[in-house]
């Protein structure tokens, strides 16, 4: 009897706590909004925890990413956006001390299955990084890199074609078609980033993860990449981390707000930026912190 009482009291105590305090203090919390989709989820994550050594960086995150959706992830610096994004194609495997638990699925397939080969996974879930990182090779070889290692083409003509279409999709073709054999590192920052996007597209992934792809770029290059994201979403599913709320508002369908490793709110982008459900989200988008 007393035991039951105690439980009831604890529940009440939790209920009266403000959501902000709850999110900051306890490990189990509710994500507000619509993190899950009823149908058409391309990737679905449940109860994801990520640790760097003993330090936990992601707490119990659950989220779906829909087919052909552009999902924006926003949140203050250090809240774990990159960490979460890197879980989605197991790029965290390259960090020795990083440990991921929970269910992460790509079309129903567990991507952390120990028997799974990460090579085809990363071919299906491509990644564009914050800093443009073209290889010290020619523009052509940069784009041809993925198709070559995955054996996607057998003849030179096919490879030429893949390179051209990828560069076209990344709207870089016109600028580089006369110097395909010049080094990729000789391009401007914005061109390099589009080259990296072309390189990712060339493998024809199903999902593209972008970690602050425009943070090193000027407004014009940024506008080009945003345009590109809109076009790409016709064929690809995109998850993008950004620090620019305008950018999130412009390019994404849904927006996820992270705070201190927790997923606070996921809602349609318009709703997040006009009428967020959670006060932490509101505080962030109105610029009160972050």
């Amino acid at each position, binding site marked *: 009897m007393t035991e039951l009482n105690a439980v009831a009291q604890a529940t009440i105590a939790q209920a009266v706590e403000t959501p902000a305090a709850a999110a900051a203090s306890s490990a189990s919390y509710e994500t507000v909004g619509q993190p899950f989709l009823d149908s058409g989820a391309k990737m679905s994550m449940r109860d994801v925890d990520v640790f760097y050594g003993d330090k936990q960086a992601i707490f119990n995150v659950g989220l779906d990413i829909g087919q052909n959706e552009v999902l924006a992830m926003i949140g203050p610096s250090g809240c774990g956006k990159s960490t979460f994004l890197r879980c989605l194609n197991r*790029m965290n495997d390259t960090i020795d001390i990083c440990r991921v638990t929970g269910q992460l699925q790509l079309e129903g397939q567990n991507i952390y299955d120990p028997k799974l080969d990460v090579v085809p996974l*990363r071919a299906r879930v491509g990644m564009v990084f914050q800093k443009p990182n*073209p290889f*010290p090779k020619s523009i052509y070889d940069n784009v041809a890199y*993925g198709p070559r*290692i995955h054996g996607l083409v057998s003849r030179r003509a096919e490879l030429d074609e893949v390179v051209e279409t990828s560069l076209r999709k990344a709207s870089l073709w016109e600028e580089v078609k006369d110097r395909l054999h010049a080094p990729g590192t000789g391009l401007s920052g914005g061109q390099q980033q589009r080259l990296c996007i072309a390189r*990712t597209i060339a493998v024809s992934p199903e999902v593209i993860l972008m970690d602050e792809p425009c943070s090193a770029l000027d407004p014009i290059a940024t506008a080009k990449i945003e345009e590109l994201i809109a076009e790409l979403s016709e064929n690809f599913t995109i998850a993008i981390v950004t620090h620019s709320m305008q950018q999130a508002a412009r390019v994404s369908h849904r927006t996820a707000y992270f705070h201190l490793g927790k997923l606070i709110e996921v809602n349609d982008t318009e709703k997040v930026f006009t009428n967020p459900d959670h006060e932490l989200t509101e505080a962030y988008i109105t610029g009160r912190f972050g």
Partner: protein
Amino acid sequence: MSTSSLFVTLAVLIAVAYVLGRGRSMALADHSQRGFRNLNSLPFYYGMLTALWCGIPSLLLVALWLMLDGNAIDQLLIAQLPGEVAALSHAELGLVLNNIKNLALGNMVGANPEPYMVEAASTLTALQRSSQMAMTVAAISVAMVLSIIAWLRINPQQKARLQVETAFKVILLACASLAILTTIGIVFSVIFESLQFFKTVPVSDFLFGLQWSPQMAIRADQVGSSGAFGVIPLFVGTLLISLIAMIVAVPAGLMSAIYLSEYASSRVRSMVKPALEVLAGIPTVVYGFFAALTVAPFVRDSGVWAFEFLGLPMQISSESALAAGLVMGIMIIPFVSSLSDDVITAVPQSMRDGSLGLGATKSETIKQVVIPAALPGIVGGILLAVSRAIGETMIVVMAAGLAANLTANPLDTVTTVTVQIVTLLVGDQEFDSPKTLSAFALGLVLFVVTLALNYVALHVVRKYREQYE
């Protein structure tokens, strides 16, 4: 006062000057505020400035004095000697002076020294004593006077920090120029002696000659060969051994670098890397006897066995290019591996991420992205290792022999440029015979070759650095 106790005295004076200078500046500080706000510089700099004025001029004076007084005393002594002795030739005069010096030190010179020598010896002792005395007085008074002046000039407006910084800059520059001047000195002496050599042996004979046998008749009546100074066999030997060494060192070094930088866990790395670097610390003479006593016999025995097996009639010497090259290769592994390890680690992680993110495996990433990106640096490292191999002497002396064979057979005995330089110069030599002088010409050629290699290597490495910084 002896020179060493003079140095101790000066050190004490310098310390005292520092303390006094610092103290005076602190006394001049305005203590109504916290800290030393009214002083132009921190008290440390006033102390240093006083100490520098105390130390540098007096030490320079002592150095100059020690350099010059030997000669000056000799001159004074010669002026004192009886006329017929002073008129002797330069070499004989040197001999007499030497005897006098020995006498002054109390050593026996012959049975009964001539009276003028005894007299000169006592003059010498007196001269040396007064020179020492004068030096002591001069150095200490210079130190004291200058530090007192510096001490008196301390005032809050004095830019002590700037002056001390400038002084240190000059001191550092002097140290750097010492190394450069030495190099220049070596180069000039080598060039000068080589020119002497090329007076007797034409440059073309030297550079393109196919025969190396530097034994020459020293006296006209001696039976002996006239000497042949063709450098080609030596260079072929050097290249053969260096090539074998590089065939061992480049793959082993590069692969261990890749393993260490890409695959090894930090625990393994922290154990293997120092272990590899120990290899670099082993004296080459130790490698030399390892080569001569272990590897060379092994090479010979397995060669003999192999040829018997094949039924070929082959002679195998116990000294071979192969043995020397193998051991030299092992010696060079740490050079290649630690330089390559550095450049591979310097390839930005974002480059690897880009490749892995496209679904490349680790080995694909290494082969197609990391190594090409690091290649210029790796090549630079390898070139530095080559110049090290070319300059190596000890292993070759012990394991490859001395015979200047013009051969490409790794089982044959060969010799290298450095080994020949050593054999030409050890023992009793006449320093103006072509045989001895040829060592300088060899040195010059070697110097030019390694310089060119180093230049290329540094150039390549620098170009690589610019790429990522």
